[in-house]
C-alpha cells in the first residue's frame, strides 16, 4: 500500500468518490460554522469596528491561493519525475481554483483596505506580489488552454510551474525591496507576540480548515472530470479507428 497506487486513474476515482461526499459536507459545515461564528459572534474590533470580520474570508483565501500553487508545484514535479497522468491532471484542475482564491483575496483585501487605509489599492509588497501571483496563474492556465496535445501541454506547463515558482519567490523579495509595506505582518504565526486576538483566531482556524477541505474537494472533483474527459476522448478515438 503506497501513495503511488492512486496514480492509477481507476483507483483514484474510486477512492476520491468515496471521500468526496465527506469532504463536501465537512468543508461546507466548517465554512458555514466559521463564517457565521466569525460574522455574528465575535466582538467588533476596538479600532476597526466590524470591518475586521472580512478577515474570515480574506486570510483563508490568501492561504489557499498560495497553497494551491504549492500543490501544483508538487503535482508538476511528480508528473515530470514519475509521469503519472493523474498528477498532471490534478495540477491542471487546481489552477482555476487557485486563481479564484487569489481573486477573492485581492477583492476582499481591496474592500477591506478602502475603509482602513483609505484606498482600494496600494503598491504594497504583499499586495503587489499577490498580483504577480495572479499573473502567473493567468499565464499557466492560458498555456494549458493553448496547447492541443495533452502530454505536451502537461510537460510544458509543469516546467513553467517550476520556473514560475522560482521567479515568484524572486519577485516577492524584489517587491519587498522596492517599496515599504502598508499591510500588516502575518496574522497567525507561532513565534510572534502580535497575533490576532483569541476571539478572532478560533473561528479563523475553522474557516481555514474549511477552505482547505473545500479546495481538496474541488481538486478531486475537477480531476475526476478531467480523467473522464480524457477517457471519452480515448473511447471516441478508438471508435473512429474501428469504424
Amino acid at each position, binding site marked *: 500500500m503506497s501513495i503511488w497506487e492512486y496514480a492509477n486513474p481507476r483507483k483514484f476515482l474510486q477512492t476520491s468518490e468515496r471521500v468526496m461526499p465527506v469532504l463536501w459536507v465537512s468543508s461546507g459545515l466548517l465554512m458555514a460554522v466559521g463564517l457565521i461564528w466569525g460574522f455574528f459572534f465575535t466582538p467588533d474590533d476596538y479600532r476597526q469596528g466590524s470591518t475586521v470580520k472580512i478577515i474570515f474570508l480574506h486570510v483563508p483565501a490568501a492561504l489557499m491561493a498560495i497553497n494551491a500553487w504549492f500543490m501544483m508545484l508538487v503535482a508538476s514535479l511528480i508528473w515530470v519525475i514519475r509521469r503519472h497522468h493523474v498528477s498532471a491532471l490534478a495540477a491542471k484542475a487546481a489552477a482555476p481554483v487557485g486563481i479564484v482564491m487569489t481573486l477573492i483575496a485581492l477583492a476582499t483585501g481591496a474592500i477591506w483596505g478602502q475603509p482602513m487605509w483609505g484606498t482600494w489599492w496600494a503598491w504594497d509588497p504583499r499586495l503587489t506580489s499577490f498580483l504577480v501571483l495572479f499573473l502567473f496563474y493567468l*499565464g499557466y492556465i492560458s498555456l494549458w488552454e493553448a*496547447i492541443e496535445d495533452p502530454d*505536451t501541454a502537461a510537460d*510544458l506547463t509543469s516546467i513553467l510551474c517550476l*520556473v514560475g515558482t522560482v*521567479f*515568484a519567490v524572486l*519577485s516577492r523579495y*524584489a517587491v519587498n*525591496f522596492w517599496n515599504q509595506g502598508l499591510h500588516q505582518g502575518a496574522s497567525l504565526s507561532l513565534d510572534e507576540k502580535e497575533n490576532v486576538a483569541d476571539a478572532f483566531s478560533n473561528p479563523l482556524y475553522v474557516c481555514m480548515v474549511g477552505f482547505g477541505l473545500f479546495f481538496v474537494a474541488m481538486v478531486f472533483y475537477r480531476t475526476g472530470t478531467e480523467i473522464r474527459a480524457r477517457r471519452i476522448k480515448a473511447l471516441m478515438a478508438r471508435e473512429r479507428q474501428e469504424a
Partner: protein
Amino acid sequence: MRDLRLAVRAGGGFGLGLAFFLIVTVMVPFSVGPESDLLSRIAPGVLWLGALLSCLLSLDRLLALDWEDGSLDLLATAPLPLEAVVTIKALAHWITTGLPLVLAAPFLGVLLNLPLEGFKWVVISLLLGTPALSVIGTFGAALTVGLKRGGLLLSLLVMPLYVPTLIFGAEAARRGAMNMGVETPLLMLAGISAGVIALMPFASAAVLRINLR
C-alpha cells in the same frame, strides 16, 4: 554567427526593436505632459520599460523562423547540446536587440530630460539587465514555439518572469539619477542576470526538446 548575419541582413528585426524603443519614448511625453520635472523623474523607469517592451516584441521571431523551416530539428540532432544552442540564440538576440537598446538609451534619455548623473547608471543597469531579458525571453519563445498565435501568449508568460529584473534594473537607474546609493539594486540585478544565464538555458532546452518531440 548565422543568426547574427541573418538578423543584420534581414534588416527588419534589427531596426524594428530600436524604432519601437524610440516611438515608446516619444509617446510618453505626449501622454503625461511635457513638464521637464516630471519627465526627468520618470525617465529611468520609462527607458527601462521601453527597453523591456522592445525586447519582448522581438522574441517571437527568435525561434519561430528556425521552427518553420526545420533547421531547429537539425540543430537539435547536431552534436552541440541543445543547452548551448539556446544560449547562443539568446546571445544573438541580445547582440541584435539588447545591445542596440543599451547604446540608444542615452540619446533617448536626452528627450526625456534625464538628469546628468542618470546617464551612466541607466546605461550600466541596462547593460547588466538586458542579457537577463534575452535569456528569460528565450525560455518564453521556446515554450510557445509550436503555437500558431503564440505572440500574445508569449507576452503573458514572459512579463511576470521579467518582474524582478525590471524592479532591480529600474530601481538602480532611478537611484543613480537621484544621486543615491546604487550598489544594492545593481548587485541584485547582476546576481539575477548571472543566475538566469547559468540556469535558464537548461529550462529552455528542456522545453524545446518537449516541443520538438
